[in-house]
């Protein structure tokens, strides 16, 4: 999905509401970042909606639709549950021992909203340290939130990397 100024104009709510939603998104994203950096993956998974998707599009086709190109990650909830179980188990060798990660999340913008929920775009840089290597993953998060009572749940978590290649990173073995 390509964001356009027109789309933003059409969909964003009035300024006051926008401010509140932006604060809400920031609060969520910072919390999410902390859970991931602290490897509290079960708590993180609880933030995902039952029909959630976690996606990383191909680096050369960041706008390609799922199913029409070879995504790096295209998890439905079942596969995402398994991803977390693998990462919290004992034989995910690529994360044994676990990477240290630190993510900086900025430039949070609410890009659309309706009664069901809203979407937010944010920029990230995730540093990964493991085996004396330092790798930086840079890109944009696209979160689609749905409201569930008092809470927000993530219906889609799309991670659009700006990297041209996973070099020298080699892999995305933790949750970005």
């Amino acid at each position, binding site marked *: 999905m390509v964001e356009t100024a027109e789309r933003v104009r059409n969909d964003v709510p009035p300024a006051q509401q926008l401010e509140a939603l932006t604060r809400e998104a920031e609060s969520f994203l910072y919390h999410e970042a902390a859970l991931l950096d602290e490897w509290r993956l079960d708590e993180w998974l609880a933030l995902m909606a039952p029909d959630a998707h976690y996606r990383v599009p191909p680096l050369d086709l960041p706008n390609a639709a799922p199913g029409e190109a070879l995504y*790096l990650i295209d998890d439905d909830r*079942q596969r995402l549950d398994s991803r977390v179980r*693998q990462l919290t188990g004992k034989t995910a*060798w690529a994360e044994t021992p676990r990477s240290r990660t630190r993510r900086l999340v900025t430039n949070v913008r609410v890009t659309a909203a309706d009664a069901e929920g809203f979407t937010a775009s944010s920029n990230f840089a995730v540093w990964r340290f493991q085996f004396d290597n330092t790798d930086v993953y840079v890109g944009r998060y696209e979160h689609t939130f749905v409201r569930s009572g008092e809470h927000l749940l993530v219906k889609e978590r799309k991670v659009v990397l700006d990297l041209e290649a*996973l070099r020298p990173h*080699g*892999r995305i073995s933790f949750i970005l």
Partner: protein
Amino acid sequence: MIEVPLLRRASPSTMVDEDPAAGSFRVHRGAFVDEDVLEREKARIFDHCWLYAMHESEVATPGDFVSRKVDGKPRMFVRVPAGVLRAFFNACPHRGMSVCRKKSGSARTFPCFYHGWTFDLQGKLVALPDAAGYAGGADMSGKGLRPVARMETYRGLVFVNFDAGACSLDEYLGNAKEYIDLMLDFGDGEVDIAPGQQRYSIRSNWKLLVENSIDVYHAHSTHNRYFNRFLPDMGLPARTWLNVSDQAPGRAIALDNGHAVVETMVRSGPLMKTAATELAQVRQRLVEKFGEERAAQIADYGRNLLIFPNLLFISTWRTIRTIYPVAPGYMEVDAWALLPRNESAELKRQRMDNFISFLGPAGFGTPDDVSGLESCQRGFFDGADAPWSDISRGMHGTPVAADELQMRAFWRRWQHLLDAVPGPRSYGDAPRASNAPACEHESACAEGGHHG
């Protein structure tokens, strides 16, 4: 004379050490860390072997191009109006600037923005600003883009060779063509490269991924989480699709010129359950087209095929993968999905989904391979105490898929090329009677390459 111990470990000149009677096959770990080994590999292997560059479907329409490195060298591939494919050095003959700065697209000309020289799709110079400054004036002949020495295709697979005197691609591939055919015929029709290229790297020697890509033995340990966590999570016990070695041991075959294949029986990809009906129809069409026996060969077996030195076909995931060394401890990997053109969008999606569940830098298989090979590379720097890797599995009997015959074939070929000595046609454990060189041209493939 007193021998002074070298501060730095010296590697033996022959790194592949074999004792068939003892069932021993070792590779010295200097092969993975020494700078001079990489220099010899570049000069004697990569400059003389046929190297996979691209698939014709990537440049389907006249004017389409891709530019990419092949063995670190910038090259461009252009579909010209007559439907012909051309391969050039991606460098302006004037001062060397890349004339094609995009990775892919469609063009009518390739202008070099440095001084404005412009080339047509045939590589011919068609615009030369201020031509009066040259002795030949506006004569633009002889100033075109330099073509790659050799480019040949097999069933849409485009290979280049930087040695003008190399044997033909057909001769080079030899009997590996039969296995490429099995790889390409699986969908009963033409195949395309799916959109989305995987480009990643591994901080280890390139040959470790060659070994790993044809290594069945490692699957149940390295990929434990895939078989024992992921598949059960999907409601698929591993045995529903993978015949483990006690049920059907599969086999490894040393093919011509160091190519090799491992083959195990696989009923279908693990995540194809919702596409089962269409897959059954595809198989039925294969039976009608090729007969039951060949259809079974195509549809019921999984194969990892190595085309020496660095091209892999992995049938379970419908993958093409290339591996290029950058430094002794660093390689670049490219991978694509190969999908039948005529299948439904749903089945294509299933096939891609199946691919990325395991393979690629974010799958549930590849990252553990990447991490493991990087661990091997770290271990090699302690090589003084453990200088040899053991690749002897199955030498004492009839090698099955989970043995290492296929790797030994690679390594024997590798040593022959590095030593620039003539080799046999096939590099199996028990060389066949035919020891005829696979290539007749002295400078090419099987002869070990010339290097002036």
